[in-house]
């Protein structure tokens, strides 16, 4: 099964799937051909390109069966926790006990893209007063209203404070629609002032110890709420064990990022990497499968790196990408233009940092939560981006704005200033990517091509 790496269309994958099956492909219980998801409405898959490895097939199937698996979990008696505006904190608490399954309702922001708008979620959100001046995550509101996607959770939690206004407003609207929310506070991350104790976070930012203590108390409140839902106690030992399990996943992702972004041969497409990077946030509703998927992907990538085989020519220009894109065609566009993504800050970079195991577990989780780039300054975020861009040898940077997102109004410019100071020779461009970017694709393509040409010309000139 060790064919040369390639990006396949959906039709090509169907042929390959049959071949793999004949050769004895073993799949997880949620496996199957990718094209079946189109029949369920994910029409965007028809215009994507997929990595040809069985490991990537498993990754896609894990992602695209999440709603189905959540319904099955409920039918099996499990309680569902919707962890909103939460990039990897509450799920770790929830997975500390059997009987709870946590997922990330905000992930619905990809539904308009995957279903090419056919689900009408953005229009539903608009009818509920959340129009297109809000970030595309408003699709989540439509998903709650139609109840045709994920099951309505037994418990909804939402972090608020140093978060984006879009989500805070959308979640509040959701509560007014009759979905009670357990709000918890994530404060703006600030360094210690004179006389205060300071702590270094896993992502390299610093924070006053009093902030960690405050968030740890918030997590203690959450622990009690989750205990009530689970109908059993969640001990600190349970939380510690869950942190250790989450760290296994995080280390796997780190190894995968190092192998993919650090290799000269681009062993895995950017689209599969984008999906892999989101997995530690909530484990795609199944922690053990997430671990298995990442292990398989890593093994495939290590094999490809060892053989020196990649999906793109080695001359592909190395781009660092800032912010997630709601239209999944954009990574392919970059690769088709002669670029490759060699590092990214999709706003969940902190979910790949190892959570400290040598401090009390709620404090450790608080440190993980405070590492969220959204909680800190744009300067802090810019510094992390610079470190990563340097580490992976980025030759240019793209800051993709999220339409309507409150943090994107000024953050991109500050990040650009930090990058210009610290990496003065790195060209940076910024543009906006909507959920369904059809109308903008030619413009985006021209901008990416121009950036890549600029880098290539610099390489030629002494």
């Amino acid at each position: 099964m060790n064919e040369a790496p390639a990006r396949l269309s959906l039709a090509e994958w169907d042929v390959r799937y049959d071949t793999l099956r004949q050769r004895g492909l073993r799949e997880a219980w949620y496996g199957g051909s990718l094209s079946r998801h189109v029949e369920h409405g994910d029409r965007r898959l028809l215009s994507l390109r997929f990595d040809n490895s069985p490991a990537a097939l498993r990754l896609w199937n894990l992602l695209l069966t999440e709603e189905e698996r959540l319904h099955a979990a409920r039918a099996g008696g499990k309680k569902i926790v919707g962890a909103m505006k939460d990039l990897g904190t509450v799920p770790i608490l929830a997975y500390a006990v059997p009987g709870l399954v946590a997922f990330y309702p905000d992930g619905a922001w990809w539904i308009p893209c995957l279903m090419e708008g056919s689900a009408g979620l953005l229009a539903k959100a608009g009818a509920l007063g959340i129009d297109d001046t809000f970030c595309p995550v408003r699709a989540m509101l439509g998903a709650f209203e139609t109840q045709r996607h994920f099951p309505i959770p037994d418990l909804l939690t939402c972090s608020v404070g140093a978060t984006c206004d879009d989500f805070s407003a959308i979640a509040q609207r959701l509560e007014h629609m009759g979905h009670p929310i357990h709000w918890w506070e994530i404060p703006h991350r600030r360094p210690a002032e004179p006389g205060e104790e300071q702590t270094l976070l896993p992502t390299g930012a610093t924070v006053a110890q009093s902030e960690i203590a405050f968030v740890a108390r918030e997590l203690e409140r959450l622990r009690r709420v989750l205990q009530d839902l689970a109908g059993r106690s969640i001990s600190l030992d349970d939380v510690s064990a869950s942190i250790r399990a989450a760290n296994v996943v995080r280390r796997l992702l780190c190894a995968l990022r190092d192998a993919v972004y650090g290799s000269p041969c681009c062993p895995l497409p950017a689209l599969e990497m984008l999906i892999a990077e989101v997995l530690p946030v909530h484990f795609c509703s199944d922690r053990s499968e997430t671990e298995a998927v990442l292990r398989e992907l890593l093994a495939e990538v290590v094999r490809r790196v060892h053989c020196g085989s990649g999906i793109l020519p080695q001359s592909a220009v190395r781009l660092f990408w800032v912010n997630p894109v709601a239209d999944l065609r954009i990574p392919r566009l970059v690769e088709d233009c002669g670029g490759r993504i060699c590092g990214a800050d999709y706003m969940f970079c902190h979910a790949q940092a190892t959570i400290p195991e040598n401090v009390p577990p709620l404090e450790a989780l608080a440190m993980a939560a405070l590492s969220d780039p959204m909680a800190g300054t744009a300067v802090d975020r810019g510094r992390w981006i610079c470190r990563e861009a340097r580490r992976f040898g980025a030759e240019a940077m793209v800051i993709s704005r999220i339409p309507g997102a409150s943090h994107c109004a000024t953050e991109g410019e500050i990040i650009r200033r930090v990058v210009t100071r610290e990496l003065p020779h790195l060209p940076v461009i910024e543009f906006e990517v909507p959920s369904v970017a059809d109308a903008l694709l030619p413009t985006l393509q021209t901008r990416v091509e121009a950036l890549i040409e600029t880098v290539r010309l610099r390489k030629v000139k002494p």
Partner: protein
Amino acid sequence: MKHVYYTSPFVPPVWIAAHGLKPCLMNVSARDTGTGTSPGECPYARAVINQASRRDDSLFVLTATCDQMRRAAEWLSLEFEQRRGKDEKAKDPYDLDSPVFLLNVPATWHSAARDRYRAELARLGRFLVRKGGRSPDASDLRESLRSGRLQLHVPHTDPVGVRTTAVPLAVVGGPLMEEHAELYRVIERNGGSVALNGSEGCERSQVTPGDASEFVRDPLGMLTALYFDSIGDAFRRPDSGLARWLVPRIEQRSIRGVVFYAYTWCDLWRAQYVSLAEAVKLPSLLLELGGEERLSAGTITRIQAFMESLR
């Protein structure tokens, strides 16, 4: 005496005055919006940045009550840093030299959040002392309370007056730039009367003066009770405090319609429109305000049509 500029009703001017500094409410003007708004940027936040960055030798207390203002504080701090020539390498925006203080007002209401607001006021006090203020003693506290500096009061948002023949309306929204107070005049010219003012800095965010001896005994406790416990706002979660403030007053004052306003890209107030309109069960109008120096013709026409439908 050093001036300390602020914009939010969650910054108690009395606490600044007690430190021997002069609290100054920023009179935010659309003229300060300039042409420099980035895509998605709130014109009010931009106007605050532009106005504040022209004021040297002053201090600024901004609040993390919305994402745009939190980031405006960072931007402003970086502007001052750049002016000080600290641009050789990325510095922390809130280093000890910065004249900008970001007050983290919790969005949630529970007791730990309350304690945190109190701790933030204490941290503000330490900032003011570092910047030349003095640690307040009992007489400073008494004097600042006596001088009536409890209130955030935005004079330009005062309605002209309640006329008995006019249609009583409520106006509800966040901060309002000076020029946009024209909306009160437009309402009044068209037969309305603002009988309930829920704009920031008006009735909704006024606090009742407390007892001086209580203030001297526990200033932070009293300020927390006065401000954090009582002001309902769009950023608070849950936001029930807003409806709790608005609905009974609507009934008491026989209000017949509600005019909501929100600046372009202000998610928090824009989203309030549907929820509060549902809560008050009255004809409601949402006005979207931009950074222009006059109300747009479209905005004025919308007010006129709304008033016509109520008469």
